[in-house]
């Protein structure tokens, strides 16, 4: 870095803002992130208000897994705490302890993603079939059936140009147990001729799930971005901290600010998507 120009207020706070350059820049970046997620939350409100009757679940818990998400909320909040502890340790010149808490933060973020992976894959193995003529299942006449594909059901194919499942000749479906019972109704055979539309519980299923996958997917990308930065500091941090401990603590402070923001987004996502 010998060729670099010395930039004023790289480390010492500016009297107008009370912040060094990096911290001020990070707050500005977060302002823009607020606008990004703000636009998406606003879209959610508008789409939900304008949703045709019966296309939006009464609350997310009908479809989504609340216990797993609650567990993930605890994991993320804990990771925010360990992030602060890493910064505090570095401020007190305890580099080993700082690096340790950084590693814990990284592992907690990883745990969050693993749980998210199970949540996602559960959705992609769960199907809904919309019928042209209602069928009688368990004594009730229904126009759509939810369930898992039976073991001997021929595999479904996707039509690439319309990005949706092609209507097969027939499918074999193990319907979900009705609410309040654990007993699955027997396997159903549904003719392709009576299928209007078939979808897994992925983004294409409904606008609710589309919103869910877009918002949590974008949040997941932010988690991954944060993990990349934390991993970088886990690997290179000790050497940097030996040379310029104050500068290193500043960097971890900025990383932490970002990390708390990602955490905060989840604090909003959780009730909006799962509980409301």
């Amino acid at each position, binding site marked *: 870095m010998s060729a670099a120009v*010395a930039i004023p207020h790289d480390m010492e706070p500016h009297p107008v803002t009370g912040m060094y350059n*990096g911290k*001020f820049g990070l707050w500005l970046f977060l302002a823009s992130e607020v*606008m990004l997620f703000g636009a998406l939350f606003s879209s959610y409100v508008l789409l939900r208000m304008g949703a045709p009757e019966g296309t939006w679940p009464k609350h997310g818990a009908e479809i989504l897994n609340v216990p797993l998400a609650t567990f993930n909320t605890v994991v993320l909040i804990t990771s925010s705490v360990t992030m602060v502890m890493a910064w505090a340790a570095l401020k007190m010149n305890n580099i080993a302890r700082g690096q340790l808490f950084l590693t814990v933060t990284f592992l907690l973020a990883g745990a969050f993603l693993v749980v998210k992976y199970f949540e996602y894959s559960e959705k992609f193995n769960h199907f809904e079939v919309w019928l042209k003529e209602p069928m009688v299942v368990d004594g009730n006449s229904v126009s759509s059936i939810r369930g898992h594909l039976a073991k001997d059901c021929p595999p479904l194919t996707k039509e690439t140009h319309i990005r949706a499942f092609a209507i097969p000749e027939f499918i074999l479906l193990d319907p979900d147990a009705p609410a309040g019972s654990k007993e699955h109704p027997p396997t159903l055979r549904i003719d392709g001729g009576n299928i209007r539309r078939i979808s897994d519980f992925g983004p294409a299923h409904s606008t609710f799930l589309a919103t869910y996958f877009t918002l949590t997917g974008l949040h997941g990308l932010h988690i991954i971005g944060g993990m990349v930065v934390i991993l970088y500091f886990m690997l290179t941090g000790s050497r940097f901290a030996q040379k310029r401990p104050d500068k290193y603590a500043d960097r971890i402070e900025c990383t932490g600010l970002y990390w708390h923001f990602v955490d905060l987004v989840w604090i909003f996502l959780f009730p909006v998507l799962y509980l409301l």
Partner: protein
Amino acid sequence: MSKHDTHADHHHEELPFWRKYIFSVDHKVIGVQYTITALVFLMFGFALMMIMRWQLAYPGQPIPFIGKYLGDTIALDGILSGDGYNAFGAMHGTIMVFLAIVPLGVGGFGNYVLPLQIGAPDMAFPRLNMASYWIYLPGGIIMLASFFMPGGAANSGWTSYAPLSVIATTGQTMWLLGMVFLITSSLLGSVNFIVTAVQLRAKGLSFFRLPFFVWAQLVTSFLLLLAFPPLEAAAVLQLMDRVAGTSFFMPTGLVVSGVEQAHLSGGGSPLLWQHLFWFLAHPEVYVLILPALGIISEIIATNTRKPLWGYKSLVYSAIFLGFMSFIVWAHHMFMTGMGTTLSTFFQATTMIISVPSVIILTCLIISLYGASIRFTVPMLFALSFLPMFAIGGLTGLPLGLTASDIHLHDTYYVIGHFHYVVAPGTIFAVFAGIYHWFPKVTGRMMNSTLGRLHWFFSFIFINGVFMPMLFQGMAGILRRQYDQSEQLHGASAQGLSVMVSWSAWLLFVAQIPFIINFFWSIWKGQKVGANPWEATTLEWAAPSPPPHGNFDTVPVVYCGPYEYSVPGKKTDFCPQHVVA
């Protein structure tokens, strides 16, 4: 702060070529990179339009010279096809706004001039600055590459209205990816600009001693920072619609070419796209014009040899303009049936936002009063900017009123209106800025005779392009029409179309003196010192061209930005860094 060794270490350090000119962290090199790249995109966007103008002037006739090289999908037998026309139109708008004008005004001039004007050695985050250029460039390349996709480039207009854009060919997916790059680039740039302008000001350079150019860049950066993310959100949602089969913008029961789209979940809202898009794209208008107003202010102050009239009014107006620009967006949507209550609200805010614009223009015009004006080439461009920006602004008022907008919406009147703001407005300001700061960048002046030729013919022909459009629009000719002569009212105004097209082609010819002048002056222009215009702001205190790190001694500021013709002084200008 190590003020003294700032300049000692780096002067003798020779960087390898690729670090000095390609992956440079010097704001001046990055500014020049932005300017040159954006000028190339400007030329490319102009070329697309010149081809479209052939179809509009002589519908159904083969394009001379280049028609046979465009390929069968764009121009079969040399005749521009409807799809080709749509793709060219969409890409002309996209390239001009996102790849040419914004990068010129902010990436180019902002990067080069802003740190110099505030007496900073560089931007606050030099490496971030480099990253924003190297994200902008791939974004542009992705946009251009979309011409080679099956089905050609994006063809749903630069506004990409859903559901048309969702069912469009793959070029649209490229457009969305390209936008994500450009948005990321401008996000990094705007963070850098704000931090630089706030934290890196030289000692004594308080906020109300900042040149108006810096204020304009500061407000622009806030607009970029806060208005672009909603478009990024919209682009993500549209990408999901196109790639993952979601229905954010696809309504229930949508029928395409007679086929009901039963595979879609439906329940989406096409209007949502328009709201998210215009939430960006209206502040974007001020992103296009504010840097231009900043450039023009500097040039007018320098060449009138007077302080700018109403400096504080200019600053407060720019801030108010920035704030208001966030709550006027739906005046682009009066015809969507969103309801009269909302329309009335947005009509009122639109009328309010015209007030600060008029204040800025009035201040600049009054600044000319009683001055002994130096008619230099940049000043000629600046002087012609003022009336043409006024035409652009005033023709916007009938569009902001719901009653008159019903007649004018989506006609050539709209095209004429916003091009008057952006083309004879911002592009003239960009030319003015290039002539004005060229001696700072290269240490040489641009040729004045060629410059005057460039200005005179550009001024004539650019009005020949856009003035007839206002009349065509009032005659009811629609903006996106492939062949207006098929309709009676269009056929009767066909003569104007021919005039517009010839003006556009001659406008291209008028740029040749500029291109020659630009390259000739780099090597052969008259050598000048640090301050050839006898200007007051800090960039003229640095050597021309400024070295890495900018100033020989760290400047300290003692007075306001435009201390010209102060009574009792020996010279008619008092530079900011000289003790009064």
